Every structure is written in C-alpha cells, then in structure tokens.
C-alpha cells in the first residue's frame, strides 16, 4: 500500500526513433553555466546551426539576450580540421568582446572527428598571447553524445575549476557553493539568503540568479551580465568548505576539493523536508549557530503545507519527466506527499537514480512518458517541461511545469522549488493542480439504469479525487 514502492530498475527506451525529446544537448547546458559567470561567453566549436538552435531555445526560455558564439565550421573545415576557425573565433571574441571567461565547447561535429582540442587550445593560447588579454580560456569537455543539459553544465564548471582553482588561504565562514543546473534563479536567491541567515557568506558557481534572473541592465554588453565574478573565480579556494547541490555537481566539487584541499559536501536535493533539514544542519555546523527564527518558522509552515496538501495528493498518480537531479527533487516531494510515481522519464542513467521510489524509470523521451503512463493505467498529474503539455493532454492530466525548457511561460526562473519555502510551494502546486483537475472532471452519477455497481477500479480517475460539487 505504501506509495514508496520498491526501487526501480532504470530502463532504457528501446526505440530507434526518439519522439519528442526530453533531452537537450550537453553544450547547451555548458553554455548556460558559462553565461552564469559574469562577462562569460560560450563558444561552440561546430556548424553555425549548433549554436543557433541552442541560442534560440535559451532565448525562448529565459527571454534574455544570450551571448553565444560559433566557430562556424563548414564542410571543408570539418573534414580538414577546424583549428583555424577555432583560433580565429577566439581571437575575434577576445579582442572584440573581452569576456572574462571564454568557454570552448566541442559539438558532436568536432567530437566525431576526435580533434585534440586540449592541445589545440594550448597552442592557440600561446599564439594569441597578449591578444587574449584577461580572458580565461576554458575547455569544456561535454560530449554531445553523453547526457543532456545537466551534464554539460557540470562539465563547464569542471572546466572552469580546472583552469582557475588553486589552494588559497582558508576563509572562515565562507562557502564555495557549486550549484546544479536544476536550480532556478529563485532557488539560488533562497539558498544565498539561507546561508546568509547563518552569518555565513558564499560564492555561488555558477550564479544564474545574477545573470539570467531577468533584470533590465543599464547598458549593452556582448557578454553575460552578472553571475559569478572573475574575482570570485580566482578565490574559489578561499573558503571554509565546498558545498555542491545536486549529484551531478559531485565531480566538479571533488575536483575543487582536490585542488584546494577544502572539505566537500554534496547535497543531492534541496527539495523535500529531509533535504532542507540536511542543508540547515550543515549550515548550523559550519557556522556554529542555530537556525534563526525565520527558518524555524518556514519549517513549521512547511509541515502545515505538507499536511494541508496531502489530502488531495495522497494516493494520486504522478508521471514525471525531468533531468536526473530535477527528477530526484520532484520524485521526492511527490512521494513525500504520498503520491505514487508510476512512470518517470529522464535523460541519462545518472548515479543514484536506481533508488528512486518509482514504478518505472525510463531513460527516454516524452513519448515514453505518455505511452508508458497510459500502459500503467494513466495518471492524475504530470510534472515536466513545457513540451510535456502534449503528454499531459493525452493523459487528461494537468501539467505542473518544471525544468527546461519553459517556452510558453514568462518568469519560470522565478519559480521556487528548493528549500523549506520552495518545497512548500511545490506541495501546494501539486495539491492544487490535482484538485483543480478533478473539479473539472465533475463528479458523475452512475448510468441511469445501470444494473451493475461501478467498480472502484473503473472510475479510479475520479473516485479518489476530491470532488467539489458544492
């Protein structure tokens, strides 16, 4: 009876044809991380289209200017080697836009040719000499063929750390926080506030809340505006500890730990009471202070929200499509509320997913979400990015929107999913979406002269539901 069912085996979708991809390309995720560094600039080593598609999708989601460049390989350069284009692109960008960080991301095109880009970049760097100015050249190893947005994001952070991190004098009461790709600008604001509530300070890397949070700048810059500053990058090792949020940030965090000798703590998720508590316990320990009243109040409000929300949520079926760490967050809050997760779809076989309490966990696409959920008998709610609206409609279920992309919404970067408050908001969102959906499928009387009593199983979609006829 417990909705926390036995651990799932992670299935791979066996289709040759991907239908409605959930996955975006890793270089897109790398670009996003690089744009979350102040004066950052990503450069895709590939055809112009590789860059254009990522750019357009980022614009559609964030509704912000997205500085993103391309080495503009043609067929000839691809075949013969694109090093000249790469050098030319770096020179142009370094001299014209003077970015603080220029992140070079190979694409499938260059990965296929197996160029030795690390070597190329060293040579280019030497040749450019002073033309490179203060620009940090970062090599992002995010192969197009492995994973999706969060893997590219993590690879960019690893690349940055690889270039800048070194041992520095420890700095008490300061944390270097490596933030996962699944956190929104609102999540990061909340995380920073929470850390500061313990009289700690922090450096966030990447800091999406500083760059892609929607603010109107006073002037125009051809590079990212806001985010982790160059000075902060230089001082990544000046802290008392490294905190990583999200399993996918473990690798960059461990690299940073190794380079700086700082202790490393990885928190898998900040969504759900337990995850939030772990953060608070960590911050209490780091600061030697107990949690301030506001956070205690927020926890108490969360308990109330969980209780208020469980009436509508308990026993309901929620299908979820998200990248691994966001999926973990969403499965956590859904099952914490007593929902079942008959189907969860994700983009890659990330560590730890096999323990998630879902019935089926598929590395697949949004068509898998739809068809597997239909096979499982439907659901009451879908959680996923905006393209999941098609599956939700086919399943006659509402969609609670999380993840990337959200192309038909404004302000999605201000949705809060993390921390006591974010968990509370998500609990409300789940309960309210289910309540509203069931109110729309009105309570129905049985067929007028039906000789049979309807079986509970036949009307599951409604019979479990809160019905508001009055």
């Amino acid at each position, binding site marked *: *009876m*417990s*909705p*926390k069912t036995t651990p799932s085996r992670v299935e791979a979708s066996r289709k040759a044809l991907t239908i409605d991809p959930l996955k975006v390309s890793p270089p897109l995720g790398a670009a996003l991380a690089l744009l979350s560094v102040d004066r950052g600039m990503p450069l895709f080593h590939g055809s112009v289209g590789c860059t254009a598609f990522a750019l357009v999708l980022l614009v559609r989601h964030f509704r912000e200017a997205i500085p993103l460049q391309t080495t503009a390989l043609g067929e000839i350069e691809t075949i013969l080697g694109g090093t000249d284009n790469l050098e030319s692109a770096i020179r142009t960008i370094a001299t014209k836009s003077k970015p603080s960080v220029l992140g070079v991301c190979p694409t499938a095109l260059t990965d296929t040719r197996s160029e030795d880009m690390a070597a190329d970049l060293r040579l280019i760097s030497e040749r450019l000499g002073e033309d490179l100015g203060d620009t940090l050249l970062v090599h992002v190893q995010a192969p197009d063929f492995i994973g999706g947005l969060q893997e590219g994001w993590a690879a960019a952070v690893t690349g940055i750390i690889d270039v800048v991190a070194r041992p520095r004098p420890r700095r008490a009461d300061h944390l270097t926080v490596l933030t996962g790709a699944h956190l929104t600008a609102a999540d990061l604001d909340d995380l920073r506030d929470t850390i500061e509530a313990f009289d700690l300070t922090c450096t966030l890397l990447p800091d999406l809340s500083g760059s892609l949070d929607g603010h109107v700048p006073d002037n125009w810059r051809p590079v990212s505006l806001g985010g982790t500053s160059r000075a902060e990058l230089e001082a990544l090792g000046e802290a008392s500890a490294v905190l990583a949020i999200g399993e996918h940030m473990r690798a960059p965090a461990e690299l940073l730990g190794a380079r700086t000798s700082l202790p490393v703590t990885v928190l898998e998720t900040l969504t759900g*009471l*337990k995850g939030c*508590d*772990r953060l*608070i*316990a960590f911050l*209490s320990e780091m600061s030697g202070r*107990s*949690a301030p009243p506001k956070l*205690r109040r927020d*926890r108490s409000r969360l*308990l109330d929200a*969980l*209780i208020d929300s*469980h*009436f509508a949520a*308990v*026993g309901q079926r929620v299908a979820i499509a998200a990248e691994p760490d966001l999926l973990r967050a969403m499965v956590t809050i859904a*099952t*914490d*509320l*007593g929902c079942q997760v008959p189907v969860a779809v994700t983009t890659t076989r990330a560590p730890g997913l096999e323990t998630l309490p879902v019935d089926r966990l598929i590395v697949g696409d949004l068509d898998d979400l739809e068809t597997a959920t239909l096979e499982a008998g439907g659901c009451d709610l879908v959680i996923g990015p905006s393209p999941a609206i098609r599956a939700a409609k086919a399943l006659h279920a509402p969609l609670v929107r999380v993840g990337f992309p959200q192309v038909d919404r404004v302000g999605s970067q201000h949705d809060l999913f993390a921390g006591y408050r974010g968990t509370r908001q998500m609990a409300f969102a789940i309960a309210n979406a289910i309540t509203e959906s069931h109110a729309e499928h009105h*309570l*129905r*009387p*049985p067929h007028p*002269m*039906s*000789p*049979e*009593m*309807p079986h*509970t199983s036949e009307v599951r979609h409604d*019979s*479990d*539901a*809160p*019905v*508001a*006829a*009055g």
Partner: protein
Amino acid sequence: MLTDRLAPVFEEPACATNRAKTDAQKRAGCKAKGPTPGAAAGGCAFDGAKISLQPIVDAAHIVHGPIACEGNNWDNRHSASSGSDLYRRGLTTDLTELDVIHGGEKKLWKAIRQAVEKFDPPAVFVYQTCVPSLTGDDIHAVCAAAAERHGRPVIPVEAPGFVGTKNAGNRLAGQTLLDHVIGTGEPETTTPTDICLIAEFNIVGDLWQVKPLFDALGIRLLSPITGDARYHEVTYAHRAKASMVVCSQAMVNVGRGLQERWGIPYFEGSFNGVRATSEALRTFARLLVEQGADADLIDRAEALIAEKEAEVQRQMEPYRATLEGKKVLLYTGGNKAWSIVQTLQDMGMEVIGTSVRKSTDHGKARAKDLLHEDKKLFGAIPAGEMFRMLKDGEADIMLSGGRSQFVALNARRPWLDTNQERHHAYAGYEGFINLAKRMSLTLNAPIWEQVHSPAPWEEGYTA
C-alpha cells in the same frame, strides 16, 4: 413568539429521543437545551433548513436576510447534482439598513420575480432569517402572492436562525415539505417498488453509491428527499410504497408524516457500512413485499447482499493489513456515532471512543453495545483534551467534521473528514471500500513520519 408557534414541530412522537422519554418529557419537545453563550458551536435553524432543502437541484433557493446569512455561506455544501446547478447559486435579498427600516417585503417580492425571470425554476424556496423575522416581514403572504403571480410554487421556509439548532431547522424543513410540497404532484406512473429516501442529501455522490443497488433489484427511487432531487420528484413522495429515514435525527417527521397521512411504512436506517446497507436493503424488500411487490424481491435482495458482501471482502484485502488494530477516535454526530463504529470494527479497527453528544438515547445504546464500555462514549470533548489524546498517541486517526480537524492535524495525527464537507463518498458497499482506502492512504501517508521528525535544531535530529 415564532418559537412557540413552531413548537409543535418539535413534538415528535416518532423521534428516537422521544420514544425513550416519559410523556411529560415528550411534551417538552425535542428541542435541545439552548447553547451556552461563549461556549457554543454549531449551526442555527436556518442552516439546518437550508441544508435539508437545498439539494433540490432545480429550485431557486432565496435567502431573505442580511449578507451574513448567505454571503458567508453559499455553495459550501458538497451535495452533488446530476443535472441543474441552480441550487448552487447564492440567492439572497442582501438586506440593507434601509430595507430593515422600511420593511423587506417589497424587495423580497422583486427578488422572487427576478429569480423567476432569470432562472425559470419549477419552484422557489424562500428562507426566512432572524432580521426580517424580527422586523415582521410576512414571507408567507409574499410567497402566496408570488406563487399566484408566477404560476408556480413559492414556498416559505420559516426557520430563522434564532428559533433553534440546526437539527430544529432540519425538522422545520421537513414540516415545510409536508405542508407545501409533498402530495402537490402526481407521477406519470407508479410501480409496486417505488420508494422514498428521506434525509439522504447525496453528499459528494453518496446516493449514487447506493442507487445502483436499488436499480439492480428493480426498486425505483420515486422520491429522493432531497439528494439530487428535482422539485417534481419531491411532490411525488406520497405515492411511495415505503420510505427510509437515512439520518434519523434530521427529518424523521417526514417519515412519520408520510405514514400518518398516506399510510406509507417507513424505517430508520443508514448506508454507513456493510451491515447497515444490507439491513436497509433487507428492510426495503420486506416492506415492499408487504405492500404488494413480488415476493421474490426478498430472495433477490438476499442474493445481491451475498454477492456484494463477498465482493467487499475481496476488495477489502489490500487495506486489511494497514487498518487491522488501528485505534480510531470518532467525533461525529447523529446515527454516525454508532453506525461508523460498526463499520470501523468490521474493518478490524479499534474504536477508542465515540462522541454521542448529538445522538439519541437509542443511538447511545447501540454505540454502547458495540463498544462494551461506557467510558468510550464521550460527550463533547474539549479541544485541549482531544489534542492531548491524539498527541499522546491514544488514537492513530481521528474521524470527524471539518471544524475539529485542526486538533488532530496540529497534533500531527491523521484525520479524515466524515461530515458534510468531506470530498469522498462513503455510502453503501462501495463507500465502505472507499472509506477503507482513504483511511489506509492517510495512515500510510509519508507526511506523518516527516512531521514527527525532529528539526535540525531539535534533539534527536539525524541527517
């Protein structure tokens, strides 16, 4: 005094409370002792009257009073309709100070006209409230004139809040039906198995969980009073062959009235749980056969009961382990104080106590039979004591109405709504399984472990 004028309604010889009384007590009426100022809870007579009549889905229900009577109150019940939703509209004369000074009759007259023009309902119910009652608005006269003008029934419901409790209002509503509605229409056809259900209000579709049982037996629900009723169906009640009073406290006077005026036998029963449902089906079969229905109805009823009870046993399986031995505190009213006890015991649960504060002596006796111990029968439990019982784990779950829920929830214990505001239907066999499922889900909900886990700043916290 209106209260005196209405007193006969409370003299209810068939009332279960009264049956246990001496004659002298009986003459004192069923009206309970007035509530204590500063320590009272519960609705007023108007509330009770409206609850009883509003489920007539195609009628216009106009509340003649200041905004508090309808503005704070409309569309707050979960009675379900299979058709019109006119009953869910909040219709009121919204009396102002001027209306009070000059009298509200004219405004009421206009309001009735506007309701007729806008909704063209088959009938209009007009609810009197305290303020116009105090200032002397004669709603009977207005309704009579309006009925003539608009060529349809316009029925005065004289149950202003201050004449008594919600239960008094239920009775007054019943009396209104007897006086103004029942017997004013005739069905196209009648059958030997026509029945009437009294005080079953189709809360979140309760009625629809039992109606298929009647359908399966060829028993026709001629007149639902008043769950999912069309006005004309209520007018047919006098042609029923038997009736059942579902909530005995609420409208037993209607059952008695049908018997006295039209010789229709009635019984008091419940659809709470398997045993009560089977008993209701049995009793109907017996009464109908006595009234001339084919004798095989009894056998068919037994066969259906056997089939459904077996089915319930099968369907209970997944929930049994969770429910077995769990301790329940029941804080509800009327016949639920014992019928739900029985239901819960049938599920293998232990009822640690039930409140019989609103029960009849008969009900109290049944509850005691089931629980064996007097000390498990409570009156009103002070919230503080209830909180303690739950906090200390004396009960695993509380079943009650919406107002006491926060006692349980603040004590961080599972709670299920079994009163009118609930979102789930628990009637008949299907409802029994529904209840088992909901309790099981709630008891198993992972939030309870979370809300009891120590905060990081509390002792006992572990990551």
